C-alpha cells in the first residue's frame, strides 16, 4: 500500500542517502525533516532579532547575524532540497556562476551610485 508518511517505519532507520531517480543519491525523508527543523529554528532566530530585546547590540551586529543566518538557510535549501550536494557539480557551477555574476554586477551598480 502506498504511504505518504514522511518517515515510515521501514525507512526510519535507513541510511541517510539512497540511490534514486536520476542516478544520483537522494537523502532520506528524515534528513529532509531535520533540514526543515534547522530552517524553522534559523527563521525563529531571525525574527527574534527584530524585537526590542536585541536592539542594544547595534545595527551592524544585527545585520551581520542576519546575513549569516540568511546564507545558512540559503545553503541548506540549495544543498539538500535542491540536491546540489548529491548532484553533478556542473549544476552547482552553473548556478553559482549566475549568482556570483548577478551579485558582482549589482555591487558595481550600487558602488557607482555611492550606496555604501
Amino acid at each position, binding site marked *: 500500500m*502506498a*504511504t*505518504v508518511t*514522511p518517515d*515510515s517505519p*521501514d*525507512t526510519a532507520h535507513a541510511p541517510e542517502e539512497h*540511490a*534514486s*531517480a*536520476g*542516478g544520483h543519491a*537522494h537523502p532520506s*525523508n528524515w534528513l*529532509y*525533516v531535520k*533540514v*526543515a527543523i534547522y*530552517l*524553522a529554528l534559523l*527563521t525563529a532566530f*531571525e*525574527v527574534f*532579532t*527584530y524585537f526590542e530585546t536585541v*536592539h542594544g547590540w547595534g*545595527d551592524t551586529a*544585527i*545585520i551581520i547575524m*542576519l*546575513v549569516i*543566518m*540568511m546564507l545558512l*538557510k*540559503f545553503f541548506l*535549501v*540549495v544543498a*539538500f*532540497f*535542491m*540536491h546540489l550536494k548529491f548532484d*553533478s557539480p*556542473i*549544476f552547482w557551477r*552553473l*548556478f553559482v*556562476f*549566475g*549568482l556570483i*555574476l*548577478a*551579485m558582482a*554586477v*549589482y555591487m558595481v*551598480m*550600487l558602488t557607482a*551610485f555611492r*550606496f555604501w
Partner: protein
Amino acid sequence: MTAEAPAHTEEHHTSTGLSNEKLAMWVFLGSECLLFCGLISTYMFNKGRIGDDDVGPNDVFDIPFTSVSSFVLLMSSLTMVFAVSSIARGDLRGNRIWLATTAALGATFVAGQVYEFTAFYSEGLGFTTNLFGSAFYALTGFHGAHVTIGIVMLMSLLVMSMRGNLGPERAETVEIIGLYWHFVDIVWIVIFTIVYLFPQ
C-alpha cells in the same frame, strides 16, 4: 515498501551524460538570480528615499504576519521534496497528496501577500506613493508572480497525475519543477531578511 523507479536510473544519452532539461532549468535559475539581484539592489538603493511625512517601512510592515507567511513557504519546500521522493519511489498516491499540499501552502503564501498589499495600500502606500513603495511592490510582486506560476505548474502536475500521465518514469519532471519551487523559496529567504528584518 514501494519500489524504486525502474525506468529512470540509467545514464542520460547526452553529450554531458546529464539531463538536458535539468541542465536548462539550472541555467534558467542562474539567469533568474540576475533578475532578483537587480530588484533587490533597486530596493536597497531606494528604501530610504522617502519624504519626512511619507509612508515608510516602519509604518507598514507587520513582521509577525510576514514571519508566518515565510514559515509557510519554507514548509512548502519540505512538502515539495516529499513529492519528489514519493514519485521516485513509485508512490503515486503520496505524490499527489504532497503536490496538492505544496500548492495549497503556496496559495496560502500568495493569499497572505495579497492581504499584505491590501493592508499597505489602505495605510497609504501605493505603487507610486514614493520610491520605497515602487521598489517594494516591484520586488515582492515579481516574487509573488513567480510563486503563482509555480502553483500553476504544481496543479498541472496534479492533473497529469490524476489522468495517469505522471508515473515514476517522469520523476525528473517533478524534480525539475521542484527546483523552480525551491528557487522561489530561497529568493524569499533573501527578501525576508533584507526587506523586512534589516534594521530600517
